[in-house]
């Protein structure tokens, strides 16, 4: 017989850790897929074409101006009326992707634009093609600036996956609610959940701060 830890039975711990796994999964999807779309958003935001710039700006403003919770509701309850089959997992993944893409896109646009204008001009003077200029000159420099805020935003992604619990995605907060329904120890269970999120997020926060100090050589 395994003794209960922190007043939570082993079976409930197993469920919580399964939930933790889904939280990590959803965060990873949000970051990877969101990063991919977000990179396209960042490039679109500094595009020469007014239409592409405008569309990207509209997208970013739409996502940053509405709550993630409402986005999840629209996808989960809203899209099935058009005949899309939308399980909670799919709705949560799409919502996290759209959400992260808008914020990461804005962060990265800022990083791209903070590469000094002269670097873009120098690349043009060397007759580099647009993609060469971006890939060989701008991106390597922007990357240094982008890493700390990107790691910092990963904390936001992990925390915001908790919102997926409201559409019934069985991540950590959702499992916590279920366990609370069974044991009626909300203070204990939600503090433990908070502690688990803290264990996920704090190393990222710490890393972000450390990287900021380490990579911020140019501005020192």
């Amino acid at each position, binding site marked *: 017989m395994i003794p209960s830890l922190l007043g939570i039975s082993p079976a409930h711990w197993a469920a919580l850790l399964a939930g933790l796994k889904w939280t990590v999964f959803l965060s990873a999807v949000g970051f990877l897929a969101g990063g991919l779309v977000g990179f396209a958003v960042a490039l679109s935001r500094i595009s020469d074409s007014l239409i592409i710039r405008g569309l990207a700006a509209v997208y970013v*403003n*739409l996502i*940053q*101006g*509405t*709550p*993630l*919770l*409402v*986005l999840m*509701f*629209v996808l989960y*309850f*809203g*899209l099935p*009326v*058009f*005949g899309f089959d939308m399980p909670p997992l799919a709705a949560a993944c799409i919502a996290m992707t759209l959400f992260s893409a808008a914020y990461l896109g804005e962060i990265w646009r800022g990083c791209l634009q903070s590469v000094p204008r002269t670097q873009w001009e120098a690349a043009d003077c060397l007759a580099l093609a647009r993609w060469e200029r971006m890939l060989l000159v701008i991106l390597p420099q922007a990357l240094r600036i982008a890493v700390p805020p990107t790691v910092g935003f990963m*904390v936001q992604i992990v*925390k*915001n996956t*908790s*919102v997926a*619990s*409201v559409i019934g995605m069985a991540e950590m*907060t959702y499992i*916590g*609610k279920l366990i*609370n329904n069974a044991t*009626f*120890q*909300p*203070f204990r269970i*939600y*503090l433990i*959940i*908070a502690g688990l*999120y*803290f264990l996920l*997020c*704090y190393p990222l*926060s710490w890393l972000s701060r450390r990287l900021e100090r380490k990579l911020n050589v140019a501005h020192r």
Partner: protein
Amino acid sequence: MDYSFDFSFLWDYWPMLADGLWLTIQLSLMATVAGFLLGIACAVASTSRSRILRGLVGLYVELIRNTPLLVQLFVVYFGLASLGLKFSATTSAVIGLTINIGAYSSEIIRAGIESIHKGQIEAGDCLALSRWQVVAAIVLPTAIEKVYPALASQYVLLMLGTSIASQISAEEMTAAASRIQSDTFRPFEVFLVIAALYLLLSFGMRGLFWAVGQFAFVRRRKLGTTL
């Protein structure tokens, strides 16, 4: 795609939506004001000479910034109630949101304080101002002016975050929308409507913060820059 949009529910349900919108505005306003004051207090405390005070503020800020708002609200509403501290859903939402935004405000304002040139504070000392006079008359106004845009966007994020209070049954706009959609079975339309309302609110807030900034920071307006 033979779906026909039907927004006629608005005719019957707009008072409910309006009540929700009003509570969303109230929650945002209360948490913004209280969180701003809490943030100032914590930011000043985090620059204090006392290690214990600095440590406590650091702990508070890190704990709040590394856990989800949803879980924080659950702890305040369900958790504290189980310990005998019962608050209504709305009160819990205000408490939870304030504690949450206080930590973010503190971190932002602290960055502002740290960016202030030492000479400014020394100049204050030379004018025989007390420590508190230096903080109140020199450090804080300058620090807040510097980080004002960051604070403003954080408060817009807070307004969007009030939607999460629906999960502890505070009857704000998202909760109202959930109730309406379960009555009308028009989820897509209902959530589109409140998404549009949130969008208007966030544009409105940004405009408001801009206007307040123009009014409050004359130097920023005249020079087009901070200091």
